[in-house]
């Protein structure tokens, strides 16, 4: 789960990582109070769960129709009244109260479109206002887990402030990767050694070591899968400060981390939230017209692959998880049915833990209750398959049955045409 920059900074600050003074605000009154407190020049930063904010476009809340999205995708500048204000990006500098409040208004409650958000953009649900930092040079720091060695890795680079993927592609030698012994952790002296390798001036070695140690501690204590500071900067007076921060927290740690408090539902797709509430493993909207309901992430991806090989396009990825309740099947089909792009539905269930007879009951009930109009192709196999096929057959509902995946894909693609 992603959290906002301001939340990440709070968690880092509590563990000794220096971050700029500031706070997230949602109202003009709070913004005014905060700018007065901070004094001098401030940075105004849109809080959204997406990267590339600096180069993003802010678009207005008005007239957000599908047609507008299409035109926004082509060129946001050409959509009249879409782009808010004269300035670009979701990160802005302001000198003085008037300018700061103007930028606050230009960002707050509008939408930020970046290369990671899609044409509709992400809602700017809050705005972070911070003191400006006097930047001498920029660096990169992150901790993540390398699955192949089963250990955390600290990543650092002198090429901060830009996308680390680009640095990795263009100048891989500028990236230091240091595996961590999980028992030792990453104490400050390791951080100082790393700071030395980044050729930081001697005055900055100690605070940079502290930053690395605090970043690692945050990574472990918050059950993060990624903790990133990009950039941390050497200031004009030789200090170290984390200017931007990103934390991704392991959803599986929900039983011991306050994920509900940190979560911002306005940053997530409505249908994906509905799917989660219904206990569905995973739902992701895609661009095609064949709605898919599959059990298991691997089989769900393979089903999409098979549809594409037969010349069709999936409307979604849906891993229903382990089906042991009829309600979950109905909920999944309701979500698929709500998608106006769906012209046909392919149900592919191979029961292991999941019980195929329950899936069949769910399909029958859903077709009757939801009055599903789209043609449905069902492929059932595995646990209790005979019972499942019998239920479908005797129900009298109109579905096409397929024995195997290739045939099912072919039928679904034909039905969607």
């Amino acid at each position, binding site marked *: 789960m992603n959290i906002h920059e301001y939340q990440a900074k709070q968690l880092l600050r509590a563990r000794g990582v220096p971050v700029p003074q500031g706070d997230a605000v949602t109202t003009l009154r709070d913004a005014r109070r905060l700018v007065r407190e901070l004094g001098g020049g401030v940075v105004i930063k849109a809080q959204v769960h997406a990267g590339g904010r600096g180069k993003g476009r802010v678009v207005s809340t008005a007239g957000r129709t599908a047609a507008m999205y299409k035109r926004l995708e082509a060129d946001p500048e050409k959509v009249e009244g879409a782009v808010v204000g004269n300035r670009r990006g979701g990160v802005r500098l302001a000198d003085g109260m008037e300018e700061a409040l103007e930028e606050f208004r230009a960002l707050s409650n509008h939408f930020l479109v970046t290369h990671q958000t899609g044409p509709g953009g992400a809602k700017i649900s809050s705005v972070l206002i911070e003191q400006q930092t006097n930047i001498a040079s920029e660096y990169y720091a992150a901790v993540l887990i390398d699955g192949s060695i089963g250990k955390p890795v600290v990543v650092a680079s002198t090429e901060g402030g830009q996308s680390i993927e680009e640095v990795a592609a263009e100048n891989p030698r500028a990236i230091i990767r240091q595996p961590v012994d999980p028992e030792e952790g990453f104490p400050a002296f390791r951080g100082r050694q790393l700071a030395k390798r980044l050729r930081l001036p001697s005055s900055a070695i100690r605070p940079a070591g502290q930053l690395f140690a605090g970043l690692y501690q945050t990574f472990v204590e918050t059950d993060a899968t990624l903790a990133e500071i990009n950039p941390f900067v050497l200031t004009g007076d030789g200090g170290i400060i984390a200017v931007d921060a990103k934390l991704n927290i392991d959803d599986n740690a929900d039983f011991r981390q306050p994920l509900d408090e940190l979560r911002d539902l306005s940053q997530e797709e409505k249908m994906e939230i509905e799917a989660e509430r219904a206990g569905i493993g995973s739902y992701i909207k895609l661009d095609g017209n064949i709605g898919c309901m599959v059990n298991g992430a691997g089989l769900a991806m393979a089903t999409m692959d098979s549809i594409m090989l037969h010349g069709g396009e999936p409307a979604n990825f849906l891993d229903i998880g382990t089906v042991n309740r009829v309600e979950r099947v109905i909920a999944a089909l309701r979500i698929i049915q709500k998608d106006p792009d769906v012209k046909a539905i392919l149900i592919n269930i*191979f029961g292991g833990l999941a019980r195929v007879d329950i899936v069949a009951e769910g399909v029958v009930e859903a077709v009757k209750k939801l009055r599903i109009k789209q043609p449905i192709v069902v492929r059932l196999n595995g646990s209790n398959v005979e019972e499942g096929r019998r239920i479908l057959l005797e129900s009298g509902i109109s579905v096409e049955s397929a024995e195997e995946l290739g045939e099912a894909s072919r039928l679904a693609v034909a039905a969607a045409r």
Partner: protein
Amino acid sequence: MSILLNRRTRVMIQGLGTEGQNQIRRSLAYNTNVVAGVHPGFRGGNSFEGFPVFPTVQDAVRRANANCSIIYVPAPGAADAILEAADAQVPLVICITEGVPIHDMVRVRQALASSKTRLIGPNCPGVIHPASHCRVGIMPPDIFKAGRVGVVSRSGTLVYEAVDQLTRAGIGQSTCVGVGGDPIIGTQQVEALRMFNSDPETDAVVLIGEIGGTAEQASAAFIKRRMNKPVVAFVAGATAPPGRRMGHAGAIIEGKDGTAEAKLAALEEAGAVISRSPAEIGSTMARVLQERGLDAALAD
């Protein structure tokens, strides 16, 4: 001798909750040798379906000679259950549990590095050896048929898919291993390949990968240097849009190595036979067995 499981496997189950109970009943019905359960404070008393239930793994090892554990303990306690089995020196531990926090698995991997225990999973369908009717996991037993083709997969349901196609084509399986879909797992797919390569019961292997991580590249390197049996490979997620997470934490596209194209290219270059379609894994294997004259695997 087979890999991982055989006629001498004595299974214990850690975690006799509803799902654990259902699954172990199915293993018993398949004639798997289940010798003990471990469930502190088990409501059913000291036994379940004819086998004894102990409060600790140590008891199950000492008193019932269990040498393989299947873990159905819910995610918050799964790492602890694995560590308990390792502490009791259980040689093979198979963890089915989905949703184990990644930081717990860092701890587990660290502890297992200095132990004799082999872990399969977590977030996996388990392992099955049809010839000895040994089912340690959640796989639907009906689709399997004893034979000479090994299957290794990151995804559970794709094991079933591949096995179903093999069985329909008349091709039986030696051992099927679901290594698990999480970023940190106990046994990598390349280790399963290595075991199959030296397994006299196995003539050929189906390898099922998916997008994300670099496990398939490691497998490709092994196939190129050491594998002396044919490998048929499928990689799921060729059509997944980049940057989106598709359920398995492992299925995140990071850099080019994580893409299906990169994985398929590495495997093909190493000499694996690629099945582009998930529906043609069985027929591809049938063709390969015929071409290589591996009639024993076909006729079985």
